[in-house]
């Protein structure tokens, strides 16, 4: 029973991870389409390694870049992450060094890009970039607002994805806390009504205790 329950919860966490990845992918697809851009991508900030990782890519580089990493405070995505300020850079082709580095890491050299931090509550989760929007007119603040709206959506998707991954990691840890909770739920389901009632009361007390202990 305990194993079944664990498997069920794990299946839920795994299923949601796929959905959130799809949601994130759809955010970059729509961002690319709305701006008429050549590519759009989301970088996740990976705290343990202090790196930015390609998490979703639409357009140029889709399928190849996912999983590529670089140090968290380098590149334009890095500026945006550490300063938490959205940024637009144009005429990048004028910088041979940038062009070479971009070509080496992503296979193409953007002429310009828009980058915005992905902020959720007080966390900086990553960066959204839109590359090579058509150079029709001068960049406008209205476009910056639009980019901010996409960033908000991407930040929520990224936050959910991280939560789902954490849930899976906890479930995958043998003998972890989740397993203990799952075991408890299994015993509760089989218990006599009287014992069950007592256990639930105890659980309510435990919940109050943990709530008081909170921040």
């Amino acid at each position: 029973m305990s194993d079944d329950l664990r498997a069920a919860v794990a299946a839920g966490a795994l299923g949601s991870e796929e959905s959130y990845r799809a949601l994130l992918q759809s955010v970059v697809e729509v961002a690319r389409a709305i701006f008429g851009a050549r590519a759009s991508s989301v970088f996740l900030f990976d705290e343990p390694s202090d790196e930015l990782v390609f998490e979703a890519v639409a357009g140029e580089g889709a399928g190849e870049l996912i999983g590529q990493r670089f140090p968290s405070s380098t590149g334009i995505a890095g500026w945006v992450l550490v300063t938490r300020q959205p940024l637009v850079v144009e005429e990048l082709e004028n910088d041979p060094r940038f062009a070479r580095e971009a070509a080496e890491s992503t296979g193409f050299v953007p002429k310009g890009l828009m980058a915005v931090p992905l902020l959720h509550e007080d966390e900086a989760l990553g960066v959204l970039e839109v590359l090579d929007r058509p150079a029709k007119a001068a960049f406008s603040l209205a476009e910056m607002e639009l980019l901010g709206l996409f960033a908000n959506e991407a930040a929520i998707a990224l936050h959910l994805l991280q939560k789902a991954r954490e849930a899976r990691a906890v479930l995958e840890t043998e003998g972890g806390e989740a397993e203990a909770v799952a075991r408890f739920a299994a015993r509760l389901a089989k218990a006599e009504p009287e014992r069950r009632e007592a256990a639930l009361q105890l659980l309510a007390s435990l919940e109050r205790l943990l709530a008081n202990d909170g921040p």
Partner: protein
Amino acid sequence: MPKQEPAREHAENLPAWSLAAGAGERISIGVEWPERVTREWAWGGSTGKGVKVCILDSGVEVGHPLVGEIDQAVAFSRGGDEEEVELVVEDTEGDLCGHGTACAGIVRSLAPECSLISARVLGAGFKGSGPVLLGGLRWAVEQGFDVINMSLSTTKRQFAGLLHELADSAYFRRTVLVASAHNMPVESYPWRFSSVISVGSHEEPEPDTFFYNPAPPVEFFARGVGVEIAWLGGGKILSTGNSFATPHMSGICALIMAKHPELTPFQLKNVLYLTANNVGGGR
């Protein structure tokens, strides 16, 4: 200019909490304000000479033609302990990502003779960047610089209290903190504090055009769209962001403070208000 310990200079002769009867004459302000504060009065003829502007950022590239000479460069990094911050007295690494060089170039373009100081707090990774930022800001406030340019912000609530204290401390010590506002629906600091000059972007092309915002928390809008910025390797590039509106405001503050060194941050804000394009400066 008695800039070293301005707070003490003011506190010595004045009661801290009240003013005795007849003591009014002891409060003399060192500046005659004209009937109408104009841009000509505020910064006409000023080059920013003598004013110290600190760029709290990613460092500044040495010898960039748009930046010119840097008078001092220091760096802050994480110590062995997570909370510990180390000061590198002479920073020789320049700029690690280009952001600080861009900001320095903009200040220089407005205030060609101001003194620039680089305090590097960004570029050494994202982890632990909060304590490094606080350490750098504390140092800059203690140095008594006239202007500190902060084209950055943090969303970490745990740092908000300390940042607030530092921002107030700067305000009372006559150091003007100019900080980038956020155009996103998040709580971030220090730009939201009323003791700083917070800056958003407008779309006009003139570098000295700025607007007062009657609906704060953002107090001023400066040029931040399609700005030619200094780029690593001695070049330049076109860029947009509040990060670049902020040094425009810092440059204007430097011009005013060079001409009127006696102004407190409170008075400086008044001058900025009165000379804003949508108040009195555009007419």
